[in-house]
């Protein structure tokens, strides 16, 4: 059933809407440490999305922060890694990689990174400490080229890969906390209004309902 704001009454409708915004903000705060997370924009939540439509995300680049791990790869720019999913190559922006049991780079979900232009030589990434990945995604073991990381590039702007860094979430903690406080007050105001509505209804019923 599709309820409109009129069906639920303005106060309750407003409260549900604010609750949804609070949920978006808490989701942002919970994920502020997740690399590659894109914050949900609370203001963009329309009434329809209260009933389950997808949230709108802010897709600005998160800051690139160093971790020092040689297989952490942050993408600067509008591009995705290609990883082997169940039905073929998928796009993914997860930046933490490590070698799996076959000696191939894979992300934290176990999906293998697609590496093209692979060398014919028998070079193993597991046996060397000296592995460099340059801004174009070319993998070098010492001075030997091992291969190139396949990227799905979405627009014409330049794309760079940073080895040893991850893309942090684009959540601004102070901003989210401020939004949370505002939303909370707004919600409290709604629910006081609801309380007053309820007590008005109660009085009306008690006063005039009795003589019926």
């Amino acid at each position, binding site marked *: 059933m599709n309820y409109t704001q009129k069906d639920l009454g303005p106060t309750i409708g407003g409260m549900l809407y604010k609750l949804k915004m609070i949920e978006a903000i808490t989701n942002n705060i919970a994920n502020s440490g997740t690399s590659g997370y894109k914050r949900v924009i609370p203001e963009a939540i329309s009434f329809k999305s209260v009933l389950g439509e997808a949230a709108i995300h802010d897709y600005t680049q998160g800051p690139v922060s160093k971790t020092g791990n040689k297989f952490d790869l942050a993408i600067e720019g509008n591009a995705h890694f290609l990883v082997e999913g169940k039905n073929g190559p998928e796009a993914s922006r997860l930046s933490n990689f*490590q070698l799996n049991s076959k000696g191939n780079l894979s992300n934290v979900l176990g999906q293998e990174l697609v590496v093209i232009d692979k060398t014919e030589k028998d070079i193993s990434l597991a046996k060397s400490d000296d592995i460099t990945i340059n801004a174009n995604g070319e993998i070098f073991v010492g001075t030997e080229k091992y291969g190139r990381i396949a990227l799905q590039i979405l627009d014409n702007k330049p794309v760079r890969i940073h080895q040893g860094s991850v893309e942090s979430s684009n959540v601004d903690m102070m901003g989210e906390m401020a939004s949370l406080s505002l939303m909370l007050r707004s919600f409290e105001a709604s629910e006081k209004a609801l309380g007053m509505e309820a007590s008005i209804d109660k009085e009306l019923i008690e006063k005039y309902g009795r003589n019926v």
Partner: protein
Amino acid sequence: MSLSHQALGAANNQMNALGKLVENISNANSIAYKKEEVSFVETLNGQVASVENKDFSQGALKRTDDLLDLAIDGQGFFEVELPSGQRGYTRVGRFKQNSDGELITQEGYRVIPQIEQTQNATRSVIERKPLIISSGDAANLSVNELGLNLKVVEPKLTIPANFNPDIKEDGSIIGVDSSTGDKSTIGKISVVVFNNPNGLESLGKGYFIPSKDSGAPQDTEVGSNSMTKVKQGYLELSNVNMATQFMELTKMRDLITAQFKVLKAIDKIYENVNYTIARSA
């Protein structure tokens, strides 16, 4: 997914990550300790999941000048025999000798040598279990677990009493007679690598066993001209960088504080809503 469940889940993950940081800091001085890392990912249904990793990057080398202190410079693990007979792997190269002069770890586990192909024996390798099968007297033949009539001799890394061990960068041990200076080859220490060391199962005290996530142990080139070297007279320090750990600690603490503020806010909402419902009943 209710608000409180999600917030509690996130807080739980963050507390867990904090625990790992504390573990790292307390192990900063453990030989060859590899630090634990926690990263967060968003799962498909919008929850925060944490992923734990052991970081196997190289620790710094500390010079001790003890002839039986060994450190691996590069990728690789020493191979030892656990009490169960199973193979274990470690980077803790702080070795000593048992009463027979054999090379053992501080916990008393034998250090496994690399098997060499010798002229009169055929080498048989079954899951890297070292066996030398020699055609011996019929009287000495015994039936081993394979059901074959073989005399089984296991190579050991035994350094005789008045010999000093000179351990080269490829892991080979030369015994030098302390009185005459005569040299004799004792054996070669086995160093192996894994595709995914993070997939190894940790037994504690720096010992690991392989699992299907780590891949099988593989040979690698060890020596002065290779990427992996065995350094005698050195021990590998932990790869914990105190400065980074404390920075992470502060970051975690901020995240947890924010999370608890959120939980408090959610609690207030429920409290208010309950009050309103109760009042208007």
